[in-house]
């Protein structure tokens, strides 16, 4: 399994699409590593600097419908090569969510109120996440305190993550 513990990047917007995560002009790359400098390059948000803000992050917390648009798996790959293995959102576009689990990464949906709370309580601070995958719990940690939040993913998605991805799962089953 991948490493799911680390610092959080907050992206306070809904409908962040895969063109914003990795623009089409980089789809000519045939190695995942080549995508690294271009993650979130076209995301125009106030006070967001893709290069600086992405560095050292493991987890993204965002709003609804993250990853809508193109089916490009370059989006999860661009996250992965930057060390980001978890996205927490109110909701995801289907293909993006599936791509994350297919790569053995986590796309976790939390209720609206919880996402609101996380933004209200932690956005703008140095926060990290500790993942307890087995018990479906994640803990947000700041130097002052900790808060543990339960999450639900489908049994099938859990098995994909445990297997290391869909290729590995399919290989041992079909």
């Amino acid at each position, binding site marked *: 399994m991948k490493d799911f513990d680390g610092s959080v990047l907050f992206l306070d917007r809904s409908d962040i699409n895969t063109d914003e995560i990795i623009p*089409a002009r980089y789809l000519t790359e*045939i190695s995942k590593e080549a995508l690294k400098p271009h993650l979130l390059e076209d995301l125009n948000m106030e006070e967001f600097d893709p290069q600086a803000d992405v560095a050292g992050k493991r987890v993204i917390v965002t709003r609804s419908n993250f990853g809508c648009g193109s*089916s490009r798996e370059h989006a999860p790959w661009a996250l992965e090569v930057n060390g980001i293995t978890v996205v927490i959102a109110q909701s995801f*576009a289907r293909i*993006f969510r599936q791509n994350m689990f297919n790569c053995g990464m986590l796309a976790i949906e939390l209720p609206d109120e919880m996402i609101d709370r996380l933004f209200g309580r932690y956005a703008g601070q140095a926060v990290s996440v500790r993942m307890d995958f087995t018990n479906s719990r994640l803990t947000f940690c700041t130097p002052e305190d900790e808060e543990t939040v339960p999450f639900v993913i489908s049994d099938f998605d859990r098995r994909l993550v445990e297997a290391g991805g*869909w290729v590995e799962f399919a290989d041992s089953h079909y």
Partner: protein
Amino acid sequence: MGQTIAQKIFESHVVDRPTPDTYVLRLDAVFCHEITTPMAINDLVARGKDRVFDSTRIKAVIDHVTPAKDSKTATQGKILREWARRHAIVDFFDIGRNGVCHALFPEKGFVRPGYTVIMGDSHTCTHGAFGAFAAGVGTTDLEVGILKGVCAFRAPSSLRIDITGTLPAGVFAKDVILSIIGRLGVNGATDKVIEFHGPVIGAMTMEERMTLCNMAVEAGATCGICPPDRTTVDYLWPFIKDDFDSPEAALEAYRRFAPDEDAVYDRIVTHDVAALAPQATFGYKPDNVKDVSELVGTPVDQVYIGSCTNGRIEDLRIAAQILKGHTIHPRVRGIVSPATPRIYDQALREGIIATFMEAGFCVTNPTCGACLGMSNGVLAEGEVCAATTNRNFNGRMGKGGMVHLMSPATAAATAIAGTIANSDLYGGR
């Protein structure tokens, strides 16, 4: 309990239920293009599993950037080409025979009612026009599809849209789907299959149904499906005539995928189009939709007619009818990309290409090109394009560019006016 179209297709294709909510489906077709497939091929090779489940069920095309524009796109084409040769994939379409995947594959008769289809492309939902379950997937799903001929999906939940009324003159399938996306929102159908029903669908050609289903994903849908009917059978007849005694027999056989009367839908929406006006998008989300009349006068730098949404012969005919006898505004760059060689050829024979050229359009070869901002009409920072494509995301057609989505009729009128315009200005029907 009655079943929806998707439920019937799922039940007839299930090979495993690893968890109660998961269906692993047998695939009837796996479609491939040169942008998302090479990484799957490279991974299969690296894993020592360079195999395909069935070379006759895999169809491949180089369509996004063709001819290659640089060394990188040339390499992507090369990987796909060599792979197709290596595995004797007969239905591989290279330059000279290639066209936009979602226009080319239906034209070749590769999709049938009741089929399960995946492709590493979000607009794979287009093929639902034939009564198939066709879903866009990522490269990993594609890779497993190529190797094993299976793909996993959650149990389908369906949203039924009954489209009622009669389309007014000058209002097209594109306007219908834009109005639906505007109503549902960009995630209004996430994780759902949209079933399109009603008299408007019944009266639509297959081309119009494809335009409609093409944009289902812009509302978040997994697939858009039209129930197979006589129009579907007539379109497919040249390809299925050896399988059935008569079109009636084919229709009868395909009825097994029609939804039950008591099918259970997640939601049922009636969408009346009797008073619908031409639609266009503003801003950077496909659900930002307005009547064209509210956007009239918005200046554009480029007009693009093409793509898997509206690059078919009917689309070119409608645009040409409006362009006839006009020249496009001197400040506007007009680009038209017939979606397939057959469409190009047909447009040539009908004089449509001449009309476009006389109006001042540049005619390109069949390709995705400008639609995703990779070639053939990339926008510069701050430029605006009126396009018959399906996605208006920030930077979609080039960094810093903006896109207004609209029908071919509106796009043609806009090209003449130099600003967004209603086609009735130029005798659009």
